[in-house]
């Protein structure tokens, strides 16, 4: 059986409405992937950087999968939350990134739902932004067409992939 290692870091976030940020992350993989070691979900600390500086999370990821096939390559799902000066948490953005097959720095642009006009007016005066009821929408490519979203910030990550035994199945990449 082939094996897959994902080693890296969630480096930080930049360009969100406020710059105090934290991120909830999870990695979803198809039934062909069996987790051997590591954690598939977690939450970073909440970083309060200086003005005009990106937030630093430096959150390590280290996963070890055994895989039977290529279907359902792991996806990294990100949910960034902003924190205001009173400690209230508000959605910053959602993002999804199929775990890249090459190592190096990667950036995930995020988005967040706009909501209806009524919701936009409410959130303008009272704060609070609409969030998704069903998280599956973040990573699925089926039910997106009804959704209206706006641009949020970007999350940078450094990921490296090591595979074992794929050569035996004549897979390159």
């Amino acid at each position: 059986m082939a094996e897959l290692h994902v080693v890296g870091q969630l480096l930080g976030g930049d360009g969100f409405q406020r710059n105090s940020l934290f991120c909830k992350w999870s990695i979803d993989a198809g039934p062909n992937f069996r987790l051997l070691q590591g954690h598939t979900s977690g939450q970073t600390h909440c970083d309060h950087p200086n003005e005009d500086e990106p937030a630093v999370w430096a959150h390590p990821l280290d996963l070890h999968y055994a895989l039977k096939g290529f279907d359902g390559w792991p996806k990294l799902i990100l949910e960034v939350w902003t924190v205001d000066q009173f400690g209230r948490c508000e959605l910053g953005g959602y993002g999804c990134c199929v775990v890249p097959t090459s190592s190096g720095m990667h950036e995930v642009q995020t988005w967040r739902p706009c909501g209806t006009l009524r919701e936009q007016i409410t959130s303008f005066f009272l704060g609070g932004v609409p969030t998704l009821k069903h998280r599956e929408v973040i990573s699925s490519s089926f039910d997106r067409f009804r959704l209206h979203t706006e641009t949020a910030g970007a999350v940078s990550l450094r990921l490296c992939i090591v595979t074992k035994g794929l050569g035996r199945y004549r897979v390159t990449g």
Partner: protein
Amino acid sequence: MAAPSAGQQRYFNVMATGQIESGRFEGNSSLYCRYVFSCGEDWSVMCGVEEGITQMASSSGSTANGSVVWNFPIDATFRSTCPHGWPQLVLSVYGEDYFGRPDMILGYGAVHLPLTPGRHRVTVRTFRPLASSLLGRLQSWLNGMRPEFIESLFPAKGEGREATSPCICSPRPALFSTTSFGSVSLVLDVAIQGMEQLGYAVPPPRAEGVRLIDPLAATIS
């Protein structure tokens, strides 16, 4: 060490050399940096120093960007059977605060050793924990004791970052807050031996660097 025969070797070696080049913490002049390597259960340190403290370095007026040069060499070799728990370099930078009190924590940082062989220039942005309550923050500002991690390897771990544990100052668990400031520049040269023989596809080297070859293969050719 005897040269392992082909097909018998069950482990691979990762050699990391390089230096903690410099730190950039604007407004702080004299700094020192402590480093520790953190690696998983399957890993062992074969040779080299896995822990160290740099000298106290100050920036002089001649350097334009205000960075502090440590030029501190790192050299360690690790051995493992599985890449899970790949070694991380954990850094903590100490210096003076605004009142000139020494040994204050300025920032923690962590970075995985690169998995691609070759030379890598890495910038690690650092962060430090904040007290969970306003009262705690005032207290730490007054008595000059900034919160620090009890466990020095905490920055290398992903668990337990959601919330602080309750204490007298803040009885309810709060978000675990940090503030980020400054960065450390590293140069790391990584060489990997024996990983391809175990069936791992090692990413190709990014730049020209040493690629150790199997000692037995070397003698045959």
